[in-house]
């Protein structure tokens, strides 16, 4: 088999959670411990804050260091001012940071210094997540593997780990060209190829390296996200009245995305999985690792239709990202940490008082029928999709395909039960997509061959060599 030949990872063929109802926020089957006395998924929810470096900070190393230090300092000040027991700071790199590993070393160091000071002084539990940028450009130079870009990513990962990051994440983007093509044209086959096959192959390449780096340091491999694909679909699907991408199509992409993002865990990522991976509940159901999520406190970054539902089984609660500037209520690191901190406090109260299942169910029901994308991520349905994935767990293509089919089934059941109502655009898009997907071959090689033939010309950025696929 073309694809599986290159695989040397343990695949999930069984569910770690036997039932969806076993899942709840703040608790995971395999909690993660990090320096600074923090545990993730160990019985309490940790708020996360993330702030995008201001325009201009990219112009010099000094400015970027000052920027990162300021963000950390503001967050720490607010955390103790309002009494948060714990929090996570994430820094998503801009390209300059990842392109210059020495910048990454210094910005990490600056943030570590601040966090450690507060940990020492107040005993507050803290975590520093570093997310280097996937700066590879598929259509340029040697492509996804072995380019300078690619090497810089690796060096930057190591620089972060060596300088005290608590964990490492990445938003890897293998397969993006295909999924972009498919999402904008409503072509489920291209999406499945881009996400399920190319995305999964590229993640393996990426994550085996990250896990190896982490092993050398007191630094955990965190997780990935299907941001480049399923989030692009979600983002373009937009609000209820938008007409770019159907919300049923975005739901299908999300299902496939779960099959793909699982690869990080299969390579050894421990979680918490990265916040913008809306597919994370599915992966938690399969693998038991803690997850980060975002929703109603990420309105600063984008609008989703499941702001409460995403709280239901999360272990870390994030604001996604925000401009670094002043609000009337303080600087944005302060303001948004308070937002995620207060929501986490509510969840922690529920955990402490034994009401976590009620709150989880309220979160879930608030959005379950708001949109098909929300429906499929409700914990019961997330678990079902997980089951579909592990059924074909050894074959990345087939499991992504099966995930999509299960998504379709879930939506159709809800429609039949008069719980969810679809527009014509959503209905037609779902029907035709499911028909296409059902008719796809059950053989991975055959599918890959067909896709290579079908898309090589149509999608000029796509080059099978980037994925070590024979043509």
């Amino acid at each position, binding site marked *: 088999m073309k694809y599986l030949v290159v695989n040397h990872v343990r695949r999930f063929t069984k569910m770690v959670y036997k039932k969806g109802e076993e899942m709840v926020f703040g608790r995971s089957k395999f909690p993660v411990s990090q320096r600074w006395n923090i545990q993730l998924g160990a019985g309490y929810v940790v708020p996360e804050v993330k702030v995008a470096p201001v325009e201009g900070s990219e112009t010099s190393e000094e400015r970027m260091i000052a920027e990162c230090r300021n963000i950390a300092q503001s967050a720490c000040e607010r955390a103790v001012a309002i009494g948060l027991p714990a929090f996570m700071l994430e820094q998503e790199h801009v390209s300059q940071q990842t392109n210059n590993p020495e910048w990454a070393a210094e910005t990490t160091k600056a943030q570590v210094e601040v966090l450690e000071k507060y940990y020492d002084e107040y005993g507050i539990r803290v975590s520093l997540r570093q997310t280097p940028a996937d700066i590879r450009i598929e259509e340029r130079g040697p492509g996804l593997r072995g380019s300078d870009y690619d090497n810089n990513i690796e060096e930057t990962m190591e620089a972060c780990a060596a300088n005290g990051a608590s964990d490492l994440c990445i938003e890897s983007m293998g397969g993006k060209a295909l999924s972009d093509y498919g999402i904008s044209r409503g072509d489920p086959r291209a999406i499945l190829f881009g996400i399920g096959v190319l995305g999964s192959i590229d993640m393996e390449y990426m994550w085996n390296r990250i896990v190896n780096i982490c092993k050398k340091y007191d630094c955990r491999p965190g997780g990935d996200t299907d941001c480049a694909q399923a989030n692009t679909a979600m983002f373009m699907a937009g609000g*209820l009245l938008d007409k770019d991408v159907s919300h049923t199509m975005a739901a299908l992409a999300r299902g496939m995305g779960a099959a793909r993002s699982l690869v990080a865990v299969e390579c050894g990522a421990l979680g918490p999985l990265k916040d913008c991976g809306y597919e994370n509940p599915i992966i938690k159901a399969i693998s038991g690792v803690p997850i980060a999520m975002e929703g109603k406190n990420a309105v600063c970054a984008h609008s989703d239709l499941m702001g409460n539902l995403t709280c239901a089984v999360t272990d870390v609660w994030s604001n996604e990202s925000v401009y670094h500037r002043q609000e009337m209520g303080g600087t944005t690191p302060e303001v948004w940490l308070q937002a995620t901190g207060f929501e986490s406090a509510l969840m922690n109260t529920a955990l402490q008082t034994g009401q976590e299942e009620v709150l989880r169910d309220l979160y879930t029901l608030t959005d379950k029928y708001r949109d098909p994308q929300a429906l499929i991520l409700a914990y019961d349905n997330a678990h079902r999709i997980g089951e579909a994935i592990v059924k074909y767990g050894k074959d990345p293509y087939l499991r992504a395909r099966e995930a999509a089919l299960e998504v379709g089934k879930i939506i159709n059941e809800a429609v039949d039960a008069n719980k969810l109502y679809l*527009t014509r655009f959503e209905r037609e898009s779902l029907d035709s997509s499911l028909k296409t997907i059902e008719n796809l071959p059950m053989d991975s090689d055959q599918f890959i061959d067909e896709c290579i033939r079908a898309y090589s010309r149509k999608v000029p950025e796509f080059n099978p060599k980037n994925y070590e696929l024979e043509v």
Partner: protein
Amino acid sequence: MNNIEELESKMDQDFVAVRYNVELEGPAITPEKDPDVQAILPKEEPYRSIAMGVLHGDIDEALNSVKEGLEDGLSPMDVINDGLMKGMDAVNALYTKGFFFLPDLMLSGDAMMEGLKESEKVLGHKSETKGTVVSFVAEGDPHDIGKNLVVMFLRAGGFEAIDLGRDVPNEEVIDAVKEYKPIFMTGTALMTTTMTAFPKIVEEMQENGLEVPAIGCGGGSVRRDFVESFPMSVYGVEAYHTPKLADSIIKDKKTWKEIRKEYSEIVGEFVPEYD
């Protein structure tokens, strides 16, 4: 302890979330029966088939009709203007009314472009367009789907769009301006730390004595206040606004200053914060 099904059974969804998209939906339509489309679609063959191929977003249908027409000796310019473009006009009309969606448009665009290439082969050179537009994603920025939409809308709107790709060094943008002398440019950036390329490009253009009537700058993290803090620029909101902005330049000779003020009227809809 209640379980979730029990809770669910008690809910009146109307007090929690309303699916306005479903509530609002009008009757289904057949594209070719829409009165606006009927007014646009050519009556004679093979133009009608060509346009219908585009309208259906069917590359094969469009391409075959184009080939037939060209083989029958039709002028390639007629094929383009009376066939392909009419089809695209019909698609645009349906999109504007909210009956067609992005995938329809993309597939129609693909079909139109294939037909166009075929016609140009016979023509022996590129066909004339309304004007040339240069589009790029800012240096250091990999987010390109917004730019891809912009390019598609420009082409569907009858413009020549030069697509420089993503993570484009400023120098390359300047070179393209020199080479193509565009009537309009579009820049896309999705990050605070990459949108800073826009004012740099404008500055370098000014230093090189280059000018365009306007550069539309858009993308996820780009703010209007930032874009309006340097000259020549216009804040771009939706990708489908692009051809309207370009039209306003070629038809009404609008300058960037005017477009800033009249954006909302030019694109024909409310745009937040443009007052």
